[in-house]
């Protein structure tokens, strides 16, 4: 526990030192203020912008889209994963599709989705969903594979019905993997939603960054970039911590 806090402290110090160097470079004029504003300025701008509420719509839209995409990815992924796990042949067939899925430049299909669905929230959500769902399917399959056979036998010696077996044995046993899949779904959905907004949208954090960039509006762009980074890193590390706690309690490798 003690060392963990010291490590966190050391990480914070490293980041602070890095920020400090940027600050000095900016102050010394090595970095042109037109290129990048000094970190303290970015921070002030961020506080100001968040306070003014002018980003609230963009943040709300990105968050709600990412949340819809994540939930869809998790629900569809777990259900599809459980079904595919039962059908051996289907799984073999889809294996190749799943393992090459993340090689597909999904964003290249975004313009087509816009033509089909219009410039609504839907194309963004679809991209987030497509990024997330396969990770959930794959981790669900993995988790179900790892349910120890002895626990399935235990279910039979305890006279459990199919539903009881799923609820009392299979799902909890696969839970660490399901959680891992959910974590990936969150991260990938955020990436997909923000990236698609960046490419083409009317609203959202990704859109705001690209808009600010095109208008050389550094006072908006940098705070937004920082916001997106802080948000995704925070979400990811919270989920990682939860995952680690679950794994520890199970006696799995942390």
């Amino acid at each position: 526990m003690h060392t963990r806090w010291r490590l966190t402290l050391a990480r914070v110090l490293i980041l602070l030192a890095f920020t400090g160097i940027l600050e000095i470079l900016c102050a010394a004029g090595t970095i042109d203020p037109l290129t990048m504003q000094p970190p303290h300025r970015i921070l002030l701008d961020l506080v100001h912008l968040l306070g003014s509420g002018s980003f609230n719509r963009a943040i709300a839209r990105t968050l709600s889209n990412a949340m819809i995409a994540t939930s869809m990815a998790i629900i569809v992924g777990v259900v599809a994963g459980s079904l595919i796990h039962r059908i051996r042949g289907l799984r073999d067939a889809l294996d190749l599709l799943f393992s090459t899925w993340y090689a597909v430049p999904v964003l290249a299909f975004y313009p087509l989705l816009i033509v089909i669905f219009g410039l609504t929230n839907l194309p963004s959500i679809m991209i987030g969903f497509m990024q997330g769902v396969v990770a959930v399917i794959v981790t669900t399959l993995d988790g179900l594979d790892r349910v120890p056979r002895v626990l399935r036998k235990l279910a039979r010696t305890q006279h459990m019905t199919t539903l009881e077996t799923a609820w009392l044995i299979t799902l909890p046993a696969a839970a660490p993997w399901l959680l891992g899949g959910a974590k990936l779904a969150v991260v990938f959905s955020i990436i997909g939603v923000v990236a698609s907004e960046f490419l083409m949208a009317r609203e959202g954090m990704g859109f705001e960054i690209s808009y600010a960039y095109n208008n050389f509006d550094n006072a908006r762009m940098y705070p937004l970039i920082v916001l997106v980074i802080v948000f995704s890193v925070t979400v990811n590390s919270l989920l990682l911590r939860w995952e680690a706690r679950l794994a520890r309690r199970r006696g799995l490798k942390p």
Partner: protein
Amino acid sequence: MLADAATPLVTLRGITRVFPPIAGGGQPIHALGPLDLDLRTGEFFAVVGPSGCGKSTLFELIAGLQQANDGTIAFEGKPITGKVPDGIGVVFQEDSCLPWRTVRGNIALGLRKSGLSRAEQETRIEHVLVLMNLVEFASHYPAQLSGGMRQRVCIARTLVMEPRLILLDEPFAALDQQTRLLMGEEVLRVWRSTSATVFLITHALDEAAMLSDRIAVMSARPGRILDIVETAWPRERDSRILEDERFGAISARLWRLLRDETIKAADAH
């Protein structure tokens, strides 16, 4: 309740188990039998045999987890057909504690369908917690316990259902020798205090010799029963009978029966 030789608790007649060939061709595997066996009510019965001789198959057949290709198995006179009969408790070789439930939660699993009131369930759980020396660990998670403790939890989870037949499949295989001897004593204690019949699969000859009233020695695959050794130990016994001169004689007899079969099994691999 003493052994009642007239009506066996379990009867196996002409049991044969053949596994279909593994996908992609090959021969079907004749794992077991034909085999006849009676388990007497209240006895402590062990099965030893070379690895791969079908011990675990025999175990799963009696537990109702597999079905024989040929022959009949009856528990208390009723045939066992693809379902674990009420009154049979099963402890597996692998750790089968549910890691997401506490010790108490694991033990309570066995009482879900008992129809007992909450209070009665609590009483039973407390009773087995005491019996298996788990009281102070009741709210621990399995990951916080040693392998021996986890296996005790599994035994407790079986006992809480008050089975009339307890099946143990190499339950101590993963434990060190000292812990095994002590766990053996615990099982003897439980056996005496519950008057259940115990059926133990093991590959450790000393374990079988120390614990059992009767020991079946199985042949290499396809598994058949070569001989049944009677130990004639008193019902009150513990690991100190290792010093008894008869213990050496029994172990030696088991090994004499098994040696050739073990060589045969090793060559077959």
